[in-house]
């Protein structure tokens, strides 16, 4: 593969993540973009192309959501397109923007991810249900939580993982989010709180799950030569990868996300990461449910299969541990406006690798990090490796 230009992140911005925002999707996008441009002293005139990520149109009840968001995303009169790969969208939107610049086609690209889930009544869950097969699954009256419960059960039983070890992730991430100014549900919860919370679809309990959210994030990308003029501390996108497994999800073994591993291998190879366990300083895997963080640590080859729960119980993934995981607070703490949640992870890599994460800053000058998102019908992994 030939990459014409090395690509850097030079600016980042985000709104609060909220259960229900007063602002429209366009307004949220505008605020995030303004933050991102201000953070690197750039103007919209300096932006050559715009890559937008947003999840199902059904949340908003607005078709052509990409076009609907265009004006707020700063894309008026510019080469612009929207990508959508379910929950994987946020990290994918960065990959989408990356190839605009890596190809040499543009020197700068604005990446915007927006989600407003609160408009859909009574619950955006209803819009999600249409991901199930229209002929042989929907007549059974499925619930979105089911697929997580089924995957979690398979994962837990394969490795005999006690629920306590999985619940640790929710405790850690909600606590980490206390230091994030955009966080929606940062809180101190105990292991017992998680284990005693309402059983929704066993083994999934209420506190295992991230919330429904509104919010937006934006990232400014620039080619190497341009980036060095914009900032003294660009953060490099050194590897990208994405991969999809079959939609026939009942024909797969759900205990391990091999598509995430495929995406990770692609990204690591591009970034020259030979031993991720040693070379990755911290990670932001996708954590819409607590077990997903563990599942994804294994998919990202950051530990052996089935080992992530043990590492978490030992404190390895705490912010001051050997391998900090979701130092932002993740989706479980900061919130989960689908596409924006994935791009929030890229924002976190950017701030951490620049030493700008404030109270969340990981000690020890981290140099290399990985972010990942996941989605569709439990079938896509999107992975980005960044270096400070």
């Amino acid at each position, binding site marked *: 593969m030939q990459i014409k230009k090395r690509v850097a992140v030079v600016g980042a911005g985000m709104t609060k993540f909220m259960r229900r925002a*007063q602002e429209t999707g366009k307004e949220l996008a505008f605020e995030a973009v303004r*933050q991102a441009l201000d953070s690197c002293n750039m103007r919209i005139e300096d932006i050559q192309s715009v890559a937008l990520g947003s999840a199902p149109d059904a949340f908003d009840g607005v078709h052509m959501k990409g076009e609907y968001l265009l004006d707020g995303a700063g894309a008026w009169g510019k080469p612009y397109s929207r990508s959508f790969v379910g929950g994987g969208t946020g990290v994918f939107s960065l990959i989408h923007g990356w190839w605009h610049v890596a190809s040499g086609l543009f020197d700068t690209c604005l990446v915007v991810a927006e989600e407003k889930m609160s408009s859909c009544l009574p619950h955006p869950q209803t819009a999600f249900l249409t991901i199930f097969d*229209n002929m042989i699954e929907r007549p059974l009256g499925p619930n979105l939580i089911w697929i997580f419960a089924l995957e979690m059960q398979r994962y837990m039983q394969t490795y005999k993982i006690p629920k306590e070890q999985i619940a640790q992730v929710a405790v850690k991430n909600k606590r980490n989010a206390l230091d994030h100014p955009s966080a929606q549900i940062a809180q101190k919860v105990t292991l017992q709180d998680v284990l005693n919370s309402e059983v929704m679809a066993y083994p999934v309990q209420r506190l295992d799950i991230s919330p429904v959210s509104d919010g937006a994030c934006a990232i400014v990308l620039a080619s190497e030569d341009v980036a060095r003029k914009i900032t003294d501390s660009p953060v490099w996108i050194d590897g990208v990868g994405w991969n999809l497994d079959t939609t026939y999800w009942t024909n797969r073994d759900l205990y391990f996300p091999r598509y995430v591993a495929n995406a990770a291998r692609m990204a690591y190879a591009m970034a020259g990461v030979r031993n991720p366990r040693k070379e990755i300083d911290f990670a932001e895997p996708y954590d819409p449910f607590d077990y997903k963080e563990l599942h994804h640590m294994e998919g990202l080859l950051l530990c052996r299969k089935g080992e992530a729960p043990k590492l978490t119980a030992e404190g390895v993934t705490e912010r001051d541990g050997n391998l900090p995981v979701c130092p932002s607070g993740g989706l479980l703490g900061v919130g989960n406006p689908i596409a924006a949640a994935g791009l929030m992870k890229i924002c976190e890599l950017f701030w951490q690798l620049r030493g700008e994460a404030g109270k969340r800053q990981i000690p020890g000058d981290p140099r290399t990090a990985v972010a990942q998102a996941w989605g569709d019908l439990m079938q896509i992994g999107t992975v980005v490796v960044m270096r400070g």
Partner: protein
Amino acid sequence: MSKHLQKPPGVPLREEDFEAQRVLSVMYRPKMRYSWATGVAIGRFLKGLRAGKIIGTQCAHCRRIVVPPRVFCEWCFRPVNDWVDLPDTGIINTFSVSYISTDTTKLKTPIIPAVIEIDGTTHAGFLHVIGEAKPETLKIGTRVKAVWAESTKRRGSITDIRYFKPAEWKP
């Protein structure tokens, strides 16, 4: 972190704000209906269910036997022409005990969704529900058998199988 972001933009609202009309909203209820042709493979699968049979396909190239059936193998990306009658038994590949219905209302009696790995396939199966079972007795690997709707009531739907119930192990 940019200094602006110490106070990120965005105004959180509560449900009460809408009820008290402190903010305005506009309501819309889409009215749409769909009629999906079931296609070649699923059409045959559903006809099979109506006749009380589970039908899968086998790829002549990788020899994999799968259900739900398809007219192509996504691994080999070749056409598939071999239809296989499968038994109505299998094992629980994974399951959940769900206290929420499809629209998230709470259930007193839980539904038990499961992926049923059908006997005779290459670890392939489909989503269904478990009945006639105490949740606490179920495990991954528990053997199950289909409980069919009466033949006069079957109409070519996945619900022609009412549920799968735990079954005695038979070699």
